[in-house]
């Protein structure tokens, strides 16, 4: 016979105002197996907890039901109290009399009856509870940071400075990401490269950071604290140890007319190239799709001029493997380009460009060396129109979200343009000015009031070219939707921020969920913004949603703090409320028949195959086994299991049926 204690809490008046707590305690005291039943004003207070502890000791309780608030609120409190009195904490359950009863019902007999029912079913459950023990898993104290933009850089440096090893993987030949392409940054107008490049160098020189550029994650296996990452180092076609980064090969390469990705295709690069002079590492790669040797079989000029004979045309990709404890995903975003805007003529008119391209025109390291010249004929544009929300907040275009950064960078663009072309005129078409942030609204006001940028509230319907001018047609909604037509020399579209190429494939490799726009999804939008639903995989920066630099950096440091906390112990302790495939005596071994439906159902790849063999090594049976490090206790496998061989610990079939049977008894 069980010896269960029931502790009914008044929660001040939260429960006792509508539930007769005294009667609940009295009735529940008569349930078979209950040996102790009392009510008290604040069960979570110190005296309340003492009452539980004393009762466990004095009445030798083997189960506790606390009838109070939600277990979300105080389950850890009461379980700790039980543990202190020597009772396994998982033998303590909570009946939620507050959220499930007193708060949602009027005072009355039926309310008290419902409260009694809630306690009764929990008493039956506790009778079937078993002691459970936390799961411990070892931790490999190395973090994998995917993406070498500002978010990845910040996260990697913070983790490395906390004393842990970091493996950084960047897809492009250099780290730096989009921030390295920017001219000046809002709201302080400090030079992007000037604040970024020292950080890039720090990453390269940090003793705790191993940097793989021109590399991609091939696969990730394992679970929190115990991942195994396979990384593909794409061939740079040169021996990095021999290359000194002198750059002779890039100046001699005869293939000089390839659109430069770094300059957003406004400039050109060679087939063997370093993306930009401040690149880290400052070692070139051969772009095999454009290199004359790879396409036509001859040239090899770079090989001839290289003073250290570092060129390796036959170099193959290399796969490296690392043991990893945590993953930081900081793979960034992209801006919408191509012919997504036929009405704006992007891609058709050379002088209709994206915001990122305008950054390159403004940048001192850009194709015009920072001089304000338009792409078509190199003339200084006298009239520039900026179109905010090009694609964003447009359901018809399939992008209903706000890209967040455009209001600010458009104000910055207009301002920087006015600083370079004093007599020029800048127009901004906008829907709303969303400038929430420290010094942000002041910044946009400055553009309007001090730099005299014309802000027109309305959308642009169409842009077309006539006699060398770009005709921008729009409406001014503050002037009764009056049609506006501006003859511009240059149009800059603040195109929507979208998920990076390959985001979907990467999410599938990492088992991280992603939304309809292929942005990665956090575990909780407010309270767990840097975690994913896969334990040990964290998010930083614009791979989650469009973000500006301060926000990306803040989130990256947050991610680093999570990783450092994970690495602060040698072993991880996890709640044991996970799935278990039953085991029993031979000759059955388990009721599992090895159909592995559960394996296909599990969202976390936590189901493994276990082979049961006899002493001579002969295979008797293959059954499912749950990896306790990976299982998140979601219960999907339980629902799928045809032979009912899987149970969630703490929520077994036996326990749940006991509750249901009691309710209908």
């Amino acid at each position, binding site marked *: 016979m069980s010896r269960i204690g029931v502790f009914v809490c008044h929660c001040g008046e939260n429960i006792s105002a509508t539930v007769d707590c005294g009667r609940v305690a009295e009735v529940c005291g008569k349930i078979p197996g209950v040996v102790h039943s009392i009510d008290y004003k604040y069960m979570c207070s110190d005296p309340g907890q003492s009452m539980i502890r004393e009762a466990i000791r004095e009445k030798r309780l083997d189960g506790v039901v606390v009838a109070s608030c939600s277990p979300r609120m105080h389950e850890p409190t009461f379980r700790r109290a039980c543990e202190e009195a020597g009772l396994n904490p998982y033998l303590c359950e909570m009946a939620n009399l507050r959220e499930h009863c007193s708060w949602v019902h009027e005072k009355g007999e039926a309310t008290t009856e419902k409260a009694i029912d809630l306690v009764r079913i929990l008493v039956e459950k506790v009778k079937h509870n078993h002691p459970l023990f936390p799961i411990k898993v070892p931790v490999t104290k190395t973090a994998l940071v995917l993406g070498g933009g500002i978010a990845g850089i910040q996260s990697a440096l913070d983790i490395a400075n906390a004393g842990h090893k970091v493996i950084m993987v960047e897809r492009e030949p250099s780290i730096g990401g989009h921030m390295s392409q920017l001219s000046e940054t809002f709201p302080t107008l400090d030079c992007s490269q000037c604040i970024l490049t020292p950080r890039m160098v720090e990453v390269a020189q940090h003793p705790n950071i191993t940097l793989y550029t021109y590399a991609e994650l091939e696969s990730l296996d394992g679970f929190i604290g115990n991942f195994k990452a396979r990384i593909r180092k794409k061939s740079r076609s040169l021996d990095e140890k021999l290359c000194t980064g002198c750059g002779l090969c890039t100046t001699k390469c005869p293939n000089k007319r390839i659109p430069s990705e770094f300059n957003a295709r406004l400039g050109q690069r060679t087939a063997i190239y370093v993306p930009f002079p401040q690149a880290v590492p400052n070692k070139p790669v051969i772009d095999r799709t454009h290199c004359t040797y790879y396409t036509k079989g001859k040239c090899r000029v770079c090989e001839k001029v290289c003073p250290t004979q570092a060129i390796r045309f036959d170099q193959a990709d290399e796969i490296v493997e690392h043991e990893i404890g945590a993953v930081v995903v900081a793979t960034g975003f992209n801006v919408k380009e191509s012919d997504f805007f*036929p009405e704006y003529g992007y891609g058709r008119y050379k002088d209709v460009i994206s915001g990122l391209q305008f950054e390159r025109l403004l940048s001192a390291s850009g194709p015009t060396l920072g001089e304000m010249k338009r792409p078509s004929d190199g003339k200084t544009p006298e009239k520039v129109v900026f179109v905010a929300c090009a694609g964003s907040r447009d359901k018809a275009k399939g992008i209903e979200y706000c890209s967040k950064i455009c209001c600010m960078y458009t104000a910055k663009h207009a301002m920087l343009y006015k600083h370079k072309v004093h007599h020029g005129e800048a127009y901004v078409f906008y829907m709303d000015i969303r400038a929430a942030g420290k010094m942000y609204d002041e910044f946009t006001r400055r553009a309007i009031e001090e730099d005299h940028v014309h802000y027109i509230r309305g959308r642009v319907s169409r842009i077309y070219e*006539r006699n060398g001018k770009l005709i921008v047609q729009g409406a001014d909604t503050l002037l009764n939707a009056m049609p506006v037509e501006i003859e511009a020399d240059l149009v800059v579209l603040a195109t929507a921020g979208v998920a990076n190429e390959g985001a979907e494939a990467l999410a599938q490799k990492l088992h991280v969920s992603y939304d309809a726009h292929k942005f990665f999804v956090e575990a909780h939008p407010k309270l767990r913004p840097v975690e994913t639903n896969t334990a040990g995989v964290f998010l930083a920066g614009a791979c989650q949603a469009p973000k500006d630099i301060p926000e990306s950096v803040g989130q990256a440091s947050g991610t680093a703090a999570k990783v450092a906390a994970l690495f602060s112990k040698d072993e991880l302790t996890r709640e044991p409320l996970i799935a278990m495939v039953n085991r029993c005596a031979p000759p059955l071994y388990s009721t599992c028949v090895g159909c592995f439906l559960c394996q296909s159902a599990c969202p976390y790849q936590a189901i493994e195959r276990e082979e049961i063999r006899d002493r001579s090594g002969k295979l008797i049976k293959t059954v499912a086994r749950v990896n306790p490090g990976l299982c998140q206790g979601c219960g999907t496998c339980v629902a799928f299991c045809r032979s009912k061989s899987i149970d969630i610990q703490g929520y077994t079939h036996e326990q749940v049926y006991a509750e249901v049977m009691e309710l209908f008894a």
Partner: protein
Amino acid sequence: MKMGYFPGCSMGGSSREYGESLLAIAPELDLQLEEIHDWNCCGASAAHNLNKKLSLALPARNLGLAGQQQLEELLVPCAACFSRLAGARHELHQDEALRHEIEGVIELPLEQMPRSLNILDVLQKVFPQELNGRLRHPFAHKVACYYGCLLVRPPAIAQFDRPEDPQVMDQIMQRIGAEPIDWAFKTECCGAGMSIPRTDLVGALCAKILEDAVSRGAEAIIVACPMCHSNLDMRRSAINKAAGKTYDIPVLYITQAIGLALGLPPKKLGLHRHIVPVRLPERAATPVLEPVSAQEES
């Protein structure tokens, strides 16, 4: 290819030449058109402003009749008719209760409503890949392809081409030897139904369209909608008045241009019915460019 045909009022009336030229080129393109028996007005211009049920029942009856004739696809050359028929089908598919109600009104079942296709959609389907020999007089002119509003909008219903910068008419015209210009007013409003109450407004709107086409060197404007044609052609004096100058650029239906390229007599194509005479600059026929794929193969 065989398909249903809904002429609507304009094919025999205000845009008789559109109907004539369509029926003239159809056999050349192996297109067999089966007219809906006892068809009625589609309800365009007026019904949808007056009575919602009427605006659905009118096109629905035509769809119901076509369904009875076992027609799966329906060519609707008039852009306004196309908009009404496609719109009604869309709406009645969305709302089953409404469909039953309309079925009661027209006393016809509407389980099988054929899909309406506009003229460009059909031409794109039936135009033969190999034009060698059949193209007797390549239409070697610079043309402004004018789509107007109803062929591509609303995108969810029309489900045709890129709504902001359509391409299909340009591609078809290219295949008969024309050189479509890149211009800005492909889908600009011509004034449509304002032709009668506000001719001055139509004049001003159409003047913008003609000015852009002419200034970019177009020798003809190609249309696929009776309303566009009547505004750009019949209202030319109002346009000239609004612009303060005289435009003599002719406006041709795409079916007429194809007919000329196939060597059909102008009279059979109804070219004599236009208000603005169809005078195109004489030009030595330039060899027609083969489709890109054919070039690659050779």
